[in-house]
């Protein structure tokens, strides 16, 4: 593995939930990154954010690591979950709740229900 991929591998294994995104969770710089970070923030999920705009090697490396061409990318317990469309769909279907429960990730079920009510 390249240095960048080794670094990514360590990051996704050291943190239960990691979001590779453009910008940071407090200052996203792309609408798609903003949407996923916003869902996680709203659901009270503790997650590590990695700003790919700050490191070109990570920005390219993450696409090869997951064989996925776009940012954002969400990882739970070292496994790639998906990008913006997939996280949005999983939030609305309740699959994201299940994924968090199966992996012992703390989140607010009430907040998740609020998102679903708002999008019903």
């Amino acid at each position, binding site marked *: 593995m390249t240095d960048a991929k080794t670094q990514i591998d360590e990051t996704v294994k050291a943190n239960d939930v990691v979001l590779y995104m453009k910008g940071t969770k407090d200052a996203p710089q792309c609408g*798609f990154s903003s949407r996923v970070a916003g869902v996680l923030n709203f659901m009270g999920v503790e997650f590590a954010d990695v700003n790919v705009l700050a490191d070109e090697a990570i920005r390219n490396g993450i696409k090869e690591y997951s064989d996925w061409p776009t940012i954002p990318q969400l990882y739970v317990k070292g496994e*790639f979950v*998906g990008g913006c469309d*997939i996280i949005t*769909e*999983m939030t609305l279907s309740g699959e994201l709740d299940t994924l968090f429960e199966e992996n012992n990730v703390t989140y607010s079920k009430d907040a998740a229900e609020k998102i679903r009510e708002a999008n019903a």
Partner: protein
Amino acid sequence: MGRKMNKTDEIRAKLAGAFNPRALEVLNESHQHQGHAGDDGSGESHFRVRLEDPVFADMSRVARHRAVHAALGADLMAQIHALALEISG
């Protein structure tokens, strides 16, 4: 003859060739993102695809997206800033 296809047509042609879609819709949504991050001024930066094919029925969400990415090819994917996918089996 030899006229360059626009990206909407190119995406549609590649997906129609790779799958047997029951429904296929390609929307250029670039105008909705004018002046935002990723707007390269080409008017061909943001797309939405609605694709229905029974082949997707037993595939995971990630596998569905990967199949579409592969059908479009790395060159075309690299030219698009954003591709929203609504895929059903």
